[in-house]
């Protein structure tokens, strides 16, 4: 609880900073009135029209990736199991890129991205023969499916005319810049729905960290809860990627931060959602300001900053196994 409160406070701080900072500054004290439509017209335009949608997108996408990450990690009892590694992101990217370069008229890449992550998950589940055996097979097969889809993406980009390849390029990095309004709404609604469900499943998730016979002995239907976890992870990760592209490492970092804050007793669903939002918003803020007026995509920032941070976390954390 305390950990979640601290993370929530940090998220609020970064939200305020994100609303205030940009090519034109708005004093922090004036951001809240501007969000509500009060104050100078310039502030309202900057904050409410330009920056708020981006911040909402960052919050929703980060939270979604955080939820997906902690769910998959718990499912596999493996900290390396995230939407990046099990092929969900690759599937979404491949389909989004295909919709830009391979289909004559560009149709909503966001919708394609969602279909792509669902397809990757379905392929992995089908080839692995379900989610038994801790979902290990699902994860390993997912790795292979992701690699294949990644190769297809590269092939499409290599063969496409340069203009189309350029338009498809954002879908391979991850950024809050080119987002479809419909996708933001979808991922926001998804987070609002998935978060309570995942929190309600917390007791079952805690149990999933034990060996299968123990879990069955305690009367829990293992396959059922596992499928529910995979379904939640696919939808949250799919919608996140459909909105912002494959933001690398967020789903890996967020649960690490949340776990560090909350200790070993719980599976920190809420904490991971908050930490994910925090990471994405910070990455976006850094990307917008560090090299201004050039904007670095958030996906590049998460990779540059996240990689070393993750290494540091892994090297300084006493725990060797999964939570």
């Amino acid at each position: 609880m305390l950990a979640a409160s601290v993370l929530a406070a940090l998220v609020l701080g970064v939200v305020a900073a994100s609303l205030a900072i940009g090519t034109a500054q708005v004093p922090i004290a004036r951001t809240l009135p501007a969000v509500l439509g009060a104050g100078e017209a310039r502030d309202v335009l900057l904050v409410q029209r330009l920056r708020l949608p981006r911040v909402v997108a960052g919050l929703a996408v980060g939270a979604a990736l955080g939820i997906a990450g902690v769910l998959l990690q718990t499912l596999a009892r493996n900290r390396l199991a995230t939407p990046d590694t099990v092929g969900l992101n690759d599937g979404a990217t491949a389909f989004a890129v295909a919709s830009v370069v391979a289909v004559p008229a560009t149709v909503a890449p966001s919708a394609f991205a969602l279909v792509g992550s669902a397809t990757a998950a379905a392929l992995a589940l089908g080839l692995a023969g379900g989610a038994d055996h801790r979902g290990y097979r699902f994860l390993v097969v997912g790795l292979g499916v992701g690699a294949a889809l990644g190769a297809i993406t590269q092939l499409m980009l290599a063969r496409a005319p340069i203009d189309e390849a350029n338009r498809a390029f954002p879908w391979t990095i991850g950024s809050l810049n080119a987002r479809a309004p419909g996708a933001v709404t979808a991922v926001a609604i998804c987070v609002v729905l998935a978060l309570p469900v995942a929190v309600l499943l917390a007791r079952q998730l805690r149990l999933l960290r034990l060996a299968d016979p123990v879990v069955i002995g305690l009367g829990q239907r293992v396959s059922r809860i596992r499928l529910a976890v995979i379904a939640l992870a696919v939808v949250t990760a799919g919608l996140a990627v459909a909105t912002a592209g494959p933001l690398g490492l967020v789903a890996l970092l967020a649960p690490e931060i949340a776990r560090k804050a909350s200790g070993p007793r719980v599976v920190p669903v809420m904490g991971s959602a908050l930490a994910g939002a925090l990471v994405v918003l910070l990455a976006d803020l850094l990307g917008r300001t560090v090299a201004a007026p050039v904007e670095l995509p958030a996906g590049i920032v998460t990779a540059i900053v996240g990689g070393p941070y993750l290494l540091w976390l892994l090297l300084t954390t006493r725990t060797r196994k999964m939570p």
Partner: protein
Amino acid sequence: MSAVDTPLPGTRPVLIRENRVAETAHLATQRLDVGYDGTTVVRSLDLELPPGRVTAIVGPNGCGKSTLLGALARVHAPQAGAVLLDGRELAALRPRDVARRIGLLPQQAEAPDGLTVRDLVRYGRHPHQGLLRQWTPDDAAAVHRALAAADLLELADRALDTLSGGQRQRAWIAMVVAQETEIVLLDEPTSALDLGHQLEVLDLVHDLAAAGRTVVLVLHDLSTACRHADHLVAMRDGLVVAEGAPAQVVSPQLVRDLYGVEAVVLTDPTAGTPVVCPVRRVREQ
């Protein structure tokens, strides 16, 4: 799946002790085939577990002891035949209802790092909770009783990975005790423990039986099984080769049949139970 032909006798009242069990369930198997990953390990097994007593399942490695125990707790689904709880097929009951009546401690149970003894024991209350029925004073009391029974009150807030092997094993058993089931299944609860810690665990087993619970142990040491069980089930190659009170069942011939070992069977001077002294391995079969 074969239907239940003749319902077995129902529950019977037993003595009530501290961890009150008002009545104890009757667990049996009927022409049970069970295995996993496409193989059948245990074949056509008919078994009845004496209610309120300690039963030990013994036999060589790979004879199907653990698989059988897993089937009794619905970890493995029957390939044919049935496991019957009070005459009703286990597979047809709701998992949570089964878990309120049958507790299982599997082998080599591992816990997440940093988890405390109390956290682990609290897991035992899982089958008693639901979306609408969250943590209650009853659950807290059950956890306290289990910790007390396993003599772990002082270690309750220590992380499991900081405990000795014996203490950790007692914590796992306490988790099953907190489940407050009429039937307790323990897979090799004393393996990898020294003599003192073995006795600690086995004393706990006696307490459970004394409180009216049916206890089923998988043990690899025949003498330990004879000393601590009321009822012995000897298995080999997925079949029961002998069953009954240890003193009546254990003989040099049985030891030879089970393990391919020539042995002298003595009588324990204090308990009067059989003690097995291996002499040599015999080449056979």
